[in-house]
């Protein structure tokens, strides 16, 4: 894991402690840490410079509330400014046009345009009950059309076939005509990946835009992209009247500074984020979450929301109570936790959203394999109630019996017991430094953060 801003700042903030207010001289070090943290998160340098200046002005003007240390006040300013820069919470797509409303996708090679086209189609079909048509104008990349066709098929969304012999503009016109005649609500047009400096290709996408007159022109950008994002985004923005941005591959561990860079350069809202290869991996954009992510504070809010969405409320409360009281977390809890996690999109999805400070202490090796979850459940099912409550009593002979019952090897039972122990540690850690406490802490620290 990369250094996290909060970690970076903790040293600096200690030195701020005991000082009544933030001054030009005492925030120098803190500002430098912010600069480095943002650069390490791949926020583009010109954007970082402007941001740091902004934070400085704001922080100096801040009269520190007595309940906050100057350090806390400083982090608060950073998070607030970043959230503000990230823009409004996404409103989804604007489709207020004479149908068919056209959505045009654009971006660099491999950024995720085709996959995102499929994801949008699914989202529009299921959430907005729209009749969607998909078409591909990518006549260049081998099997690009086929790729979208397969995605459309899996979604049971209509797909207008095209071929590599046709010109992209001809395909677009054909699709628009087809969509009109067949009363589609939305036409999503996928395009080939292109470099911003490829003049012929940039001219082509301009022509596509003219032919289609899209209501949404979305720039698709990879969360792992580095400093050059500002150049690319600027070039695409200069060529096309962009209406929004999709940041893909946020399920990885890239800090996603590109989101800030692109937002700054295009001044267009980030509408969605891609969080997986599967077509379910699309989420509306939350500025505060990405701000926390860039700063390395963990996506605590989405975690909690995910949990609320998928998790049985009563179960969750029971667990939360246990954690709060510092009661022993047993295998029975572990099992119900597993079931909850399965509902919430799997363990790794949850782990991704926890702050690095928590997860870095959890050995990743073999610990968070979603597939293994079913086997784990099987193992716990072969245990007696007493064994579940007091895993300490599970010695060799019991292990053998449990393994036989679950149809697994004794090693696997051992592995589970080890994993359980780690989990127990994490739970203790949470109750100590605590998710709940952390949330409370953050609420105090960061103005405007929902609790």
């Amino acid at each position: 894991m990369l250094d996290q801003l909060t970690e970076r700042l903790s040293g600096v903030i200690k030195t701020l402690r005991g000082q009544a207010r933030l001054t030009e001289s005492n925030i120098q070090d803190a500002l430098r840490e912010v600069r480095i943290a943002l650069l390490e998160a791949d926020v583009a340098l010109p954007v970082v410079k402007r941001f740091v200046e902004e934070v400085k002005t704001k922080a100096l003007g801040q009269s520190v509330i007595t309940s906050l240390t100057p350090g806390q006040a400083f982090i608060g300013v950073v998070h607030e400014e970043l959230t503000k820069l990230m823009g409004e919470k996404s409103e989804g797509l604007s489709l207020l046009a004479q149908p068919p409303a056209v959505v045009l996708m654009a971006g660099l090679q491999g950024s995720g345009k085709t996959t995102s086209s499929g994801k949008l189609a699914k989202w529009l079909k299921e959430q907005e009950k729209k009749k969607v048509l998909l078409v591909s104008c990518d006549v260049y990349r081998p099997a690009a059309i086929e790729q979208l066709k397969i995605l459309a098929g899996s979604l049971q969304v209509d797909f207008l076939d095209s071929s590599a012999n046709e010109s992209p503009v001809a395909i677009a016109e054909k699709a628009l005509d087809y969509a009109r005649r067949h009363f589609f609500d939305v036409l999503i047009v996928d395009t080939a990946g292109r470099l911003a400096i490829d003049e012929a290709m940039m001219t082509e996408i301009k022509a596509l835009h003219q032919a289609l007159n899209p209501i949404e022109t979305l720039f698709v950008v990879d969360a792992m992209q580095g400093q050059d994002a500002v150049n690319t985004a600027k070039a695409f923005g200069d060529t096309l009247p962009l209406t929004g941005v999709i940041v893909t591959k946020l399920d990885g561990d890239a800090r996603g500074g590109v989101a800030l860079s692109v937002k700054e350069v295009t001044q267009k809202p980030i509408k969605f984020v891609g969080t997986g290869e599967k077509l379910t991996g699309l989420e509306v954009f939350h500025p505060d979450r990405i701000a926390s992510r860039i700063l390395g504070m963990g996506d605590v809010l989405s975690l909690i929301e995910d949990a609320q969405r998928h998790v049985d409320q009563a179960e969750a409360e029971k667990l939360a109570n246990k954690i709060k009281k510092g009661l022993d977390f047993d295998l029975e809890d572990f099992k119900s936790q597993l079931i909850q996690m399965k509902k919430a999109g799997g363990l790794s999805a949850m782990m991704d959203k926890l702050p690095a400070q928590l997860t870095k202490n959890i050995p990743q090796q073999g610990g968070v394999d979603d597939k293994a979850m079913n086997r784990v459940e099987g193992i716990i099912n072969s245990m007696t109630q007493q064994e579940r409550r007091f895993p300490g009593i599970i010695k060799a002979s019991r292990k053998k019996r449990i393994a036989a019952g679950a149809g697994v090897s004794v090693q696997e039972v051992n592995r589970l017991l080890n994993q359980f122990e780690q989990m127990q540690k994490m739970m203790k850690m949470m109750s100590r430094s605590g998710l709940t406490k952390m949330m409370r802490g953050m609420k105090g620290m960061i103005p405007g953060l929902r609790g």
Partner: protein
Amino acid sequence: MFSFFKKSPKENTSPAPTQEGWLTRLKSGLKKTRDNLQNKVSGLFTGRLNDEWFNELEEALILADVGVKTAQLLIKNLKIKAKEERVEEAAELKPLLRSMLIDLLSPLERSFDPDRAKPFVLVFAGVNGAGKTTSIGKLAQHLKNHHYSVLLAAGDTFRAAAVAQLVAWGERNQVDVITQEKGDSAAVIFDAIQAAKARQIDVVLADTAGRLPTQLHLMEEIKKVKRVIAKADPSAPHEVILVLDANTGQNAITQVKAFDEALQLTGLIITKLDGTARGGVVAAIAGECPKPILFIGVGEQLDDMQPFSANSFVDALIE
């Protein structure tokens, strides 16, 4: 027979015509955009040295994705050198910086020798959309040009039309592609190696699905691919290559570390260097987790692949 690939680092000091072609194309292609960049490294090399100047240089390196840590380290060393050599004018420092970067990157040059085994098996790994499949298509062409027989293994059994994409490259190259209706990555690649043995094929290029290092089950899956390959041929895979997109920022370091831990990488391919991204993160990789760079990708066509040369790379980085 295959001198193009087997060039020793020393010979690289005089770039082959193809490399010059790439650099010229790169430069002319980038000119327009580069001129707009606020921080052109080369524009910096005027005037007298002072702290302001070094700050600007640090920023220029950061803009090329070199990363804060590596940029600061380079500047620190450059300052020491400047003092040692009593350099006062910025213009005199450019050759110093250039040679420092070349010293850093030339250990990453390595020859590619598919004669070491038969079949010579290469596995391509990397995050989603990095350019694995395209790199296989381009490398197949290179190998064919040098009279190697090639077989492709369609080991991406996950992504929509990934197999069709590789098959299309096979058609372009007139190279056979081993595919399976069902079956996992490991099984397809195992099959391909057996087929290569039976058909006396020289080189097997195995594609795999894109995966992010955070997807631990997928990292386990690709470890299995490697194990199964060794069952088909105990000396294989002979190369395990991580394909890296030159656009990638600091996450590239994490990628190299994670894939290396899982697979013990033997080399890298850096793609999309025909764009405006300069792949400066390679300098950080050279410092933190060095891996030889076998090739660079400079476009989407069959012949858009070049051996890596530290000289050309550095020139493109600081021109």
